[in-house]
């Protein structure tokens, strides 16, 4: 094994030990705060310090007791479905809109103030309004994700269009490309890496939003699962939820990064 790899594995382990120490410290100070070992047992099963025998939530993630009591896997699936629905919708609307804003100065002047104003609005501010409109948990969650994750896609797509060099456009002019040919043969290939950067940011936001949205809308989903744990004084599950949400978010970002690299011409064809 080379030195770098050893460092990459060893150094995070050092930090992990430190984090567990701090966590244990907090658990000894705050009443009823779960200790690391109890949390581990709550996750993977075993006998707790109080002597109870438990099946962990992660050791049986696929169970279905009834409509309102399903394993964590099903909670995640529901959340991911909503995330992808909102995310795909944001791509379908955001990419063409971004192309438009990037290509037309007038469109930029017309839309930029609204993009700048709506971009920083928290999903929690949208939620009551959307819940009032849709009166439906799924639709509300999807719409919230759509409206908060569309902005980075629009902005980055427009940025990609603006990065198209004048030289490429001159080539297109000499060859008398139509507007459509310019978009497909020149603007899109140049913008693709930018679009994917936007999509990556957007998916990150969507995953952040879903937890908050589900806490407020209730029903099923990882966000509600965490909130439900709080209401049932199941504090171990909150911590397990946080770690699972983090891991899934990391995984989504990795996958998105791989897809982005695949479509990025600057990273293709180089070994």
């Amino acid at each position, binding site marked *: 094994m080379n030195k770098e790899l050893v460092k990459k594995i060893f150094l995070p382990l050092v930090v992990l030990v430190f984090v567990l120490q701090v966590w244990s410290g907090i658990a000894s100070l705050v009443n009823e705060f779960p200790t690391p070992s109890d949390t581990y047992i709550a996750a993977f099963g075993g006998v707790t310090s109080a002597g109870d025998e438990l099946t962990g939530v992660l050791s049986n993630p696929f169970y279905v007791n009834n409509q309102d009591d399903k394993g964590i896997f099903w909670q995640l699936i529901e959340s991911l479905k909503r995330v992808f629905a909102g995310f795909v919708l944001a791509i379908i609307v955001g990419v063409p809109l971004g192309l438009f804003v990037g290509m037309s100065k007038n469109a930029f002047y017309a839309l930029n103030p609204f993009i700048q104003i709506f971009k920083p609005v928290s999903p929690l501010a949208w939620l009551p309004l959307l819940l009032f409109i849709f009166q439906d948990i799924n639709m509300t969650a999807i719409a919230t994700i759509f409206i908060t994750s569309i902005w980075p896609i629009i902005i980055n797509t427009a940025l990609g269009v603006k990065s198209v*060099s004048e*030289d*490429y456009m*001159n*080539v297109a*002019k*000499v*060859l*008398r*490309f139509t507007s459509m*040919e310019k978009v497909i*043969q*020149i603007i899109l*290939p140049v913008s693709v890496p930018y679009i994917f950067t936007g999509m990556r940011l957007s998916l990150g936001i969507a995953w952040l939003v879903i937890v908050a949205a589900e806490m407020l809308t209730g029903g099923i989903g990882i966000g509600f699962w965490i909130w439900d744990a709080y209401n049932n004084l199941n504090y171990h599950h909150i911590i397990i939820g946080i770690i699972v949400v983090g891991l899934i978010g990391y995984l989504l970002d990795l996958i998105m990064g791989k897809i982005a690299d695949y479509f990025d*011409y*600057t990273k*293709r*064809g*180089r070994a």
Partner: protein
Amino acid sequence: MSKFLSLEGIEKRFPISGKEDYVAVTDVNLEIKENEIISIIGHSGCGKSTLLNMISGLDAQTSGAIILENHHIQGPGPERAVVFQNHSLLPWLSVYQNIEMAVKKVMPQLGAHELRQRVEHYISMVNLDHAKDKLPGEISGGMKQRVGIARALSITPKVLLMDEPFGALDSLTRANLQEHLMRIQQKVQNTVVIITHDIDEAVLLSDRVIMMTNGPQATIGEILEVNLPRPRNRVELQQNPEYIRCREAILSFLYEKFAKDDE
């Protein structure tokens, strides 16, 4: 020879807000014969690139007319192909695809077989058969510029416009490309307009050298005929009295009559 490409009373002004227009070039009159190779030389800022952009149609003249085979030029078109200084290859397309894209657009009637033959023919013309599937990022600057030349020639333009085509290359590569260009030109025989600031390049490549005065209000100062037989050999030319005469004429124009200090 009949009128082929003519520039009549060309002027280019750039509006400056709150001030009088900047007159880049004015009163340019020039006739270019078919199959003639001319170069336009001058100090930087003499409007030589502006002139080329007006012939290509990428830029419009403020007044005057540019006429190619009895047609007024309006806007860019493939009959006036441009070799850009920085090659302007699309970096996500291979050498082959870059040329194919141009041929496909300009000659949509070609069948798959003819298309491939044509693209491969022009790739061979610049000796890049071995690199045809490479991306522009994987080949050298000189090779990229050869692809740019092949792309421009592949659409059989009436005029080939070259904007300081070898300006960004080191001198050995530049000499190599000049040889390529002369050899190709012997074969294809079309009209070429080259913008350059290199005196040797101008004399070596052209039938006539157009010398521009300094801007603003730049115009044609002198026109020099280069009466050297082709094919030309750069080494033999060094001793040739006509070559020496031409070089000296341009040198004296650029550094005595229209010397320019660096600002």
